[in-house]
């Protein structure tokens, strides 16, 4: 785990691969992205590399990891660079992390690299910090499956020096990179996020850590067509993971399914439900005319302690005419905490 390109993740991973090989482990390189970096390329020498697979897509040829060839070779351990990578359409699986799951299922140990920016639950915070909406994300539960998470650290100043010396990217591309992720304040903030995440990953793996809580928390997220719902889902999941709390997501529809919604809203709600499921959140469609009472009823029946919602759009001071469910949920939920999730938008630079 690192916080930016060029901190030395791949180098460190290859170094460990050499150590494992020296200790007698049958290890191969399944995928390695050299980025033209001489030190890293030198480190890959002396390790067996499985050739990449070529895939034709729209008249161009792309290279991807050849998962089948690795399975056929079946080493004890395998090095796979760039865990969050999205495979080219036409590949057997959409994401490289899904290929890695296949290798793990076959009993092959995997060493892989990723930056903190790609962790799904931090997507809004990363957007806020860097102004970049990262599209290639890895669900948190996938990272939690790792037996170990190691932080590859480098100070931002040293990283910026590397960048200026042309070690990380070729010129031109480096200047482009300097604009966004590589501002010093952005790097420092991302690094802090990575360090805190690494600390959490360590704590998560200490088996008998228990903190005295009288209350066992259970979280519910309200899903609507509002595009901010994705933020509420991420935040609920992140808080839930840190608290060790179960997480549910519900949407309330009069018909008990999505058929009554206009197409645009139906697509949005479906997308949000899918997103929640991909993060391993259990989802339900509740039947009901009144969103607030349906949510609060569900909460009571299922011992929910916290309900996560998006910020209401309107602010009616005339409650009799108020239609916003969030306002009503706060009024109705006498035994639950309601979390109104903030819009985390890019900080002005």
């Amino acid at each position, binding site marked *: 785990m690192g916080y930016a390109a060029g901190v030395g993740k791949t180098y460190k991973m290859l170094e460990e691969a050499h150590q494992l090989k020296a200790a007698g482990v049958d290890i191969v390189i399944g995928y390695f992205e050299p980025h033209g970096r001489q030190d890293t390329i030198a480190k890959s020498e002396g390790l067996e590399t499985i050739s990449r697979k070529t895939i034709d897509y729209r008249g161009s040829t792309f290279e991807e990891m050849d998962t089948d060839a690795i399975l056929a070779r079946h080493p004890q351990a395998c090095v796979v660079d760039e865990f969050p990578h999205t495979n080219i359409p036409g590949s057997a699986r959409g994401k490289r992390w899904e290929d890695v799951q296949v290798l793990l299922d076959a009993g092959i140990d995997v060493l892989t690299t990723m930056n903190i920016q790609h962790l799904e639950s931090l997507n809004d915070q990363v957007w806020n910090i860097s102004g970049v909406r990262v599209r290639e994300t890895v669900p948190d539960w996938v990272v939690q499956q790792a037996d170990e998470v190691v932080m590859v650290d480098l100070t931002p100043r040293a990283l910026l020096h590397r960048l200026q010396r042309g070690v990380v990217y070729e010129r031109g591309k480096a200047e482009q990179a300097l604009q966004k992720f590589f501002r010093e304040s952005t790097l420092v903030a991302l690094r802090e996020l990575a360090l805190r995440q690494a600390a*959490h990953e360590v704590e998560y793996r200490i088996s008998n850590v228990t903190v005295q809580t009288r209350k066992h928390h259970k979280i519910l997220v309200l899903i609507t067509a509002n595009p901010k719902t994705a933020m509420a889902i991420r935040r609920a999941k992140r808080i839930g993971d840190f608290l060790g709390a179960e997480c549910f997501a519900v949407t309330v529809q009069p018909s008990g399914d999505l058929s009554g919604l206009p197409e645009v809203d139906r697509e949005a709600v479906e997308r949000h439900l899918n997103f929640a499921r991909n993060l391993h959140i259990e989802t339900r469609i509740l039947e009901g005319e009144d969103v607030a009472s349906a949510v609060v009823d569900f909460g009571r029946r299922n011992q929910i302690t916290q309900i996560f919602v998006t910020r209401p759009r309107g602010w009616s001071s005339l409650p009799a005419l108020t239609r916003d469910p969030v306002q009503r949920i706060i009024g109705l939920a006498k035994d639950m905490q309601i979390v109104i999730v903030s819009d985390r*938008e890019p900080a002005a630079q």
Partner: protein
Amino acid sequence: MKREVRRKTPEELLLECQAEEAAAKKGHLKIFLGYASGVGKSFRMLDEARRRRERGQDVVVGAIQPKVPPEIEPLLKNLEVIPLKRIDAGAAIDLDALIRRHPLVCFIDGLAYSNPPGLRNPTRWQDVQELLNAGIKVIASINIQYIAELQKDVEAITGKHVTETVPVSFIKSADEIEIVDAPPEEPVERPPDEQAEAHERDQRLSRLRELALVLAADVVDHQLNAYLECHGLKQQFGANERILVCITPRANMQEMMETAQIIAHRFHGELTVAYVNQPNISSEDQTALDARLAIANAAGAHIEILEGEDPADVLLDFARSRGITQLFVGHTQRRGLSRLWGSPIGKLIRDSRGMDVRVFPQ
């Protein structure tokens, strides 16, 4: 109460900050932080010495560990080492020789040593401070066990008491900190009785590792705030979770604090409890308020008593200035919904950009 202050331009602020930095400290300090011996701090640090030397920098090693691991020997062969000065029973870095030699960068492997009696400074970190004052850049290594303020935590984990420590303020004064992270050694096949012991050792190491990562994150957070302040930047990044519990005399303190404490604990975040002073509160309310503040105090929260006319504005201004990421407020049922959006809580929810608002039933 309004004050008219001309805001400084970013350029002015930058110059001011740079001047302050230069006045406060001449040399630049970089620290390699590890969580146990054997994670490879010495190697990483001396490998940096090698690279700097290859780039033509004037590099000197001022201290090495008493036992040199085999992988470090080849590195040391190509580096200039100024040996420790032996005095009676102990040894210390040769401060005078180092200052006379005045390299561009001095490497100190092991920051937490006490000097033998009779020397200018009782500890090595104070010697390092002198090197910095003399304008020498210092790169040093330390293990988390030797941070003074973490002694209680470390002892609880390891059961060992160390006497040679470095204050955390010195670590935080570093211009750069780099953590050397590695998981505890790969488990090897052991007989069952040793297996349990090895497992416990791994757990202990993991706890130390977590402490080290959190300390590094705190130092980085400190640097980030200094950087933002220095550049006159107002934005807050929320890389650290900061919780503000807003209380009133009737706040449901137990539930609010319980949730706040566990979230702060799990995220290694900060917890602040704030109260906005109200004029003419009853003695009954004052007693209730005092009891709540005592609970906050006992929980180790920072406590802020704020002043101002509009409680919501005061709390939001304070929250923004502190980079709060989560605002905890109570919602009084009795007053009913009709008051909600006209109440301070409604305003807090509406205007709390960048912060989650957690509403507690009262």
